[in-house]
């Protein structure tokens, strides 16, 4: 057996026997009277990239945002059920939300660098969280984060340029570097490549592949080919319900549920 097929076998086994990093049990989300998420239970695995797919309005982004309590910022949103990070209830009253969002980082659809230098974009998080003892250590974190985000070689000579002067793809990788800089455990990505051209998209996908294993990664995407390319596990949401969750290669070749099949084959609605 070749190394490649052994690697694939190992990846397949990891996909089959997950090591849960986050667990959601019976999660419902309400915006006022409207129920956006209906009783969703799912495990987010440490070693695999998890993709959330589904039509617009199916609740996948809403559910993603419950994983680091981003819905707290929406006035009339209410979350029922239980979400645990390494067994710890993230909706418990004693949970420090700022700390939680450092542990569970987020990358958005539209790159949103701070209107500051490239260096400051990455250094800001570690500085406010007190992760660096001095200038040298902070420089080290900035370099390491930019390297992991695959951006270092492109920006090392112009760290004082504005983050907003970079190209769209570079800005998105800067945002990933910014999320990485505070040493998170989980990275949530909400359509991270939908505003990027195919080359920048490929770089983000390659980056996701490289970051896998170091961080638990959850990606929401409208692009099914992208979900197929980057994830090992895929969850299909429809009308606020989790319809099917399984190994990506199986879900895309032989889905169990009729609704999943209709959606992925383009027969939806």
């Amino acid at each position, binding site marked *: 057996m070749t190394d490649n097929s052994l690697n694939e076998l190992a990846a397949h086994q990891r996909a089959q026997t997950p090591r849960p990093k986050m667990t959601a049990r019976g999660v419902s989300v309400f915006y006022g009277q409207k129920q956006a998420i209906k009783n969703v239970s799912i495990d987010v695995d440490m070693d695999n990239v998890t993709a959330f797919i589904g039509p617009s309005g199916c609740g996948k982004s809403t559910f993603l945002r419950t994983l680091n309590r981003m819905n707290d910022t929406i006035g009339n949103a209410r979350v029922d059920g239980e979400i645990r990070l390494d067994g710890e209830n993230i909706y418990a009253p004693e949970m420090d939300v700022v700390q939680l969002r450092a542990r569970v980082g987020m990358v958005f659809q539209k790159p949103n660098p701070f209107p500051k230098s490239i260096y400051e974009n990455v250094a800001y998080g570690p500085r406010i969280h007190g992760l660096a003892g001095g200038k040298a250590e902070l420089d080290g974190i900035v370099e390491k984060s930019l390297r992991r985000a695959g951006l270092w070689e492109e920006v090392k000579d112009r760290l004082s340029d504005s983050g907003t002067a970079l190209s769209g793809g570079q800005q998105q990788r800067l945002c990933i570097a910014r999320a990485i800089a505070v040493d998170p455990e989980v990275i949530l990505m909400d359509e991270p490549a939908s505003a990027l051209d195919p080359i920048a998209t490929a770089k983000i996908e390659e980056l996701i592949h490289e970051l896998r294993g170091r961080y638990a990664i959850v990606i929401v995407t409208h692009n099914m080919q992208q979900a197929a390319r980057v994830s090992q596990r895929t969850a299909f949401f429809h009308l606020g319900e989790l319809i099917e969750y399984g190994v990506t290669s199986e879900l*895309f070749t032989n889905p169990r549920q009729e609704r999943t099949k209709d959606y992925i084959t*383009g*027969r939806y609605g």
Partner: protein
Amino acid sequence: MQEHTVKAFDDDIVRLRGLIAEMGGRAESAIERAMVALTQHDLDAASTIVAEDKRIDELEVAVETLAVQIIALRAPLADDLREVVAALKIAAVIERIGDYAKNIAKRVPLIGRHHQIEALSVLPAMAQLASEMLHDVLDAFAARDWEAAVEVNQRDRAVDDFYNSVFRTLLTFMMENPATIGEAAHLLFVAKNLERIGDHATNVAEMVYFAAQGKHMAERDRNDDLAEV
């Protein structure tokens, strides 16, 4: 089945099925006509069959071209993807079946008009079994009917039995009368070709099953090749 939101995708799938159906129809007809040509020693019909095999080869190329195009442009998934992959493999198998029919037609001039060999009288019945298997398995493909595919698979046993029996008969003939060896050897090849057509029909059945069910046919439903040699 519900239509695709992108209607052109449905058109592509319909075209792909149409090409497979045409290939299958031509291969089936080639088998039947080759047997008629053989029993009636019709040299013109035999050379027509040989010439027409080119059309089956062209259709295989058309299936490949369209399947690659569908994969590139439509990115099919789930049962759509399995159907396209199955169509590619089935086209290759039918092309091979066409070659067997052509090979039978090529032997027509080599087997005399006034043959005394009894085996020749049972070969058309054997050919009919094999070509019915092909016909029914392609119907199963069009209908995504995995149960029909399993049923076709089980019929291969009868074709194998035919072959084993023809083999022994021809062997006896050759031993009793060495003057028949030339013709008998050709008839043996004809029987072997028909036996292989049955085997190929079971390969198609396995692809139909995979396309419809998303998993491979269970070992017990597969064809154990019972042809002795």
